[in-house]
């Protein structure tokens, strides 16, 4: 058997029962841990956001209210499952799965830890390491758009329909910027495999991470695009309660609603993990000889937790965008900027490194000039817009 250059070293000696067993265990562990972490994430979000809003938050079920999500889940499970009369029944039932399954599967490509050896079997601490890794993520996040779209469409009700129309437009708009930032990372790593991307960042602590190597800007672009992709505040127009009742899941109840809820938070966790993988070196970080396999996992969890906190923070701090502002930000800011930055990264890779820096300075200077011209024209148009600016 030849050693495979890419992919999990587990399969380098062919696939036997032992390998199959390891894969099954990995899948089950990932499944269980994801479910539990969603439970904790919902609790974490409610607790942190209540802290930010001078409230106390859930504190009744279990210590510090940590079992509140479980209680809510049980309640939802026993509620009546309604099928609207005017709904398209098959699609209506299918939609929650289209949301939930990609949310589960997407996490499979995230490298959680390093490479470990248990009983002569060496394998990677991630469920799957396909050579097209990051493309799979993009594909799955596109499928979850279908979940939202079809849920809204099949409900046979106007608010869900409006919510799903918003969702599809928003997700397609931001996927462009998302793909562009991923391209930069892929250019730097030279591979689509998430393990390869992580390994490419693992030279020195922090400085070799993509957040620095791509020049910080793509990191923020990716953050914004991902937040929009997740339909999280401030981009939660899809389920804007004040305008659309509940958005695409207005007509859903009981366990089907719970599935949407689960998918939403699972996507948040997955995407935080993806940011860590793409830009912050994944499980990379100083490790010590004392239980050396544990440190990468701890690094990964710590970094992911930071981003989960950032998502909650965004929700607490920012008001929801208007629809035109959302589209402006997506098409007029994020996409041009990410296109520019792809140029910068690519030229830095192809030419000498100073060439990239020159381009970067030019882009920044050009942007500032554009801003100056805009501000200047607003000042001098004599329409009393001074007040608007001031």
């Amino acid at each position: 058997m030849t050693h495979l250059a890419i992919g999990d070293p587990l399969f380098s000696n062919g696939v036997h029962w032992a390998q199959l067993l390891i894969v099954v265990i990995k899948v089950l562990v990932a499944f269980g841990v994801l479910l539990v972490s969603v439970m904790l994430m919902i609790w974490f979000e409610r607790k942190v956001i209540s802290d930010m809003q001078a409230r106390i938050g859930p504190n009744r079920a279990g210590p510090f209210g940590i079992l509140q999500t479980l209680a809510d889940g049980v309640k939802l499970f026993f509620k009546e499952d309604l099928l609207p009369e005017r709904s398209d029944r098959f699609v209506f039932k299918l939609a929650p799965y289209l949301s939930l399954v990609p949310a589960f599967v997407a996490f499979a490509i995230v490298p959680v830890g390093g490479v470990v050896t248990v009983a002569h079997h060496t394998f990677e601490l991630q469920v799957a390491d396909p050579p097209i890794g990051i493309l799979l993520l993009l594909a799955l996040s596109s499928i979850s758009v279908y979940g939202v779209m079809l849920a809204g469409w099949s409900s046979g009700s106007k608010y869900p329909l409006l919510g799903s129309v918003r969702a599809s437009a928003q997700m397609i708009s931001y996927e462009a910027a998302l793909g562009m930032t991923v391209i930069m990372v892929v250019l730097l790593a030279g591979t689509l495999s998430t393990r390869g991307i992580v390994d490419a960042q693992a030279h020195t602590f922090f400085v070799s991470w993509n957040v620095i190597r791509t020049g910080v800007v793509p990191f923020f672009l990716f953050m914004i695009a991902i937040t929009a992709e997740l339909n999280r505040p401030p981009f939660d127009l899809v389920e804007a309660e004040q305008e659309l009742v509940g958005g695409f899941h207005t007509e859903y109840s009981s366990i089907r609603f719970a599935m949407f809820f689960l998918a939403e938070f699972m996507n948040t966790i997955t995407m935080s993990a993806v940011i860590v993988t793409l830009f912050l070196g994944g499980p990379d970080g100083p490790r010590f000889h004392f239980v050396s396999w544990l440190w990468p996992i701890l690094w990964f969890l710590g970094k992911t937790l930071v981003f989960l906190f950032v998502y909650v923070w965004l929700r607490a701090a920012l008001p929801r965008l208007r629809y035109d502002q959302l589209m402006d930000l997506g098409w007029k800011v994020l996409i041009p900027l990410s296109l520019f930055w792809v140029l910068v990264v690519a030229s830095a890779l192809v030419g000498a490194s100073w060439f990239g820096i020159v381009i970067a300075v030019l882009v920044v200077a050009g942007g500032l000039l554009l801003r100056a011209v805009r501000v200047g024209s607003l000042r001098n148009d004599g329409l009393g817009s001074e007040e608007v600016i001031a």
Partner: protein
Amino acid sequence: MGLLDGIKEDMAFLGGFKVTLEQMTKTRVTWQYPIEKKPKPVRQHGRHVLNRYEDGMEKCIGCELCAGVCPADCIYVRGADNPPAEPVSPGERYGFVYEINYLRCIHCDMCVEACPTEAITESKLFEFSFTNRADAIYTKNELLVDDDGKPKQLPWEDWRPGDDAHTSAWMRATAPGGAAAYEGKVQWSGELGYGVRAPEAGQSGVRDDALTGIRSLRDVLQLHIDDAEREPGDRGVPGALKRLRRRVELQKELLKPPSRRKG
């Protein structure tokens, strides 16, 4: 204003992140309601009581004015002639049926205002939750004060210390005519278990707080003013809460020995 100011404006939304993060470090002002309870306002409108005279006679004369004035139509009264041998109330008639439906009552206190004999007043109890409709309709037996002059405590009612002490607060708050000349003058009859209740002083500021169970407006304002003179730890909302809690403790202390005077 230069370019930098323009960028600063564009980035002004970042201030929200600072505000939210700062908020995390501040103390909470939430009261853990079922565990800690705020002192109730003295004239709070709660569950009704039917009062009795000092000699044990019922005050209700069955005139049905309360039922007539009730905007929620929740009171049902039937009057009957007093049996000559053992009269229930002084006078001709007495309330022979008296029912209040608490699924309807809005606690507006208009029945209390309408009552010519101060028979019906409201206690401060608002925490009573029944599990069936029959329990929601309080009959005369349940509303009438017992032989101590205290309201009857039903199993589903959550009486707290002090709730049953000042059940006729409104009666003592104003002179019946509302005229300033009557300030401090007793214009009401005695009550079983309490005797003649002390009057409140309106504008003069002379009054016995322990007797009337009133917290002065000045005390309430004190929660909010004079912060400059206080220790840094006692200022603002946390300080006000601290003082309020101290006050609650003090009130509990005051109410501990049963203040029932034999009437």
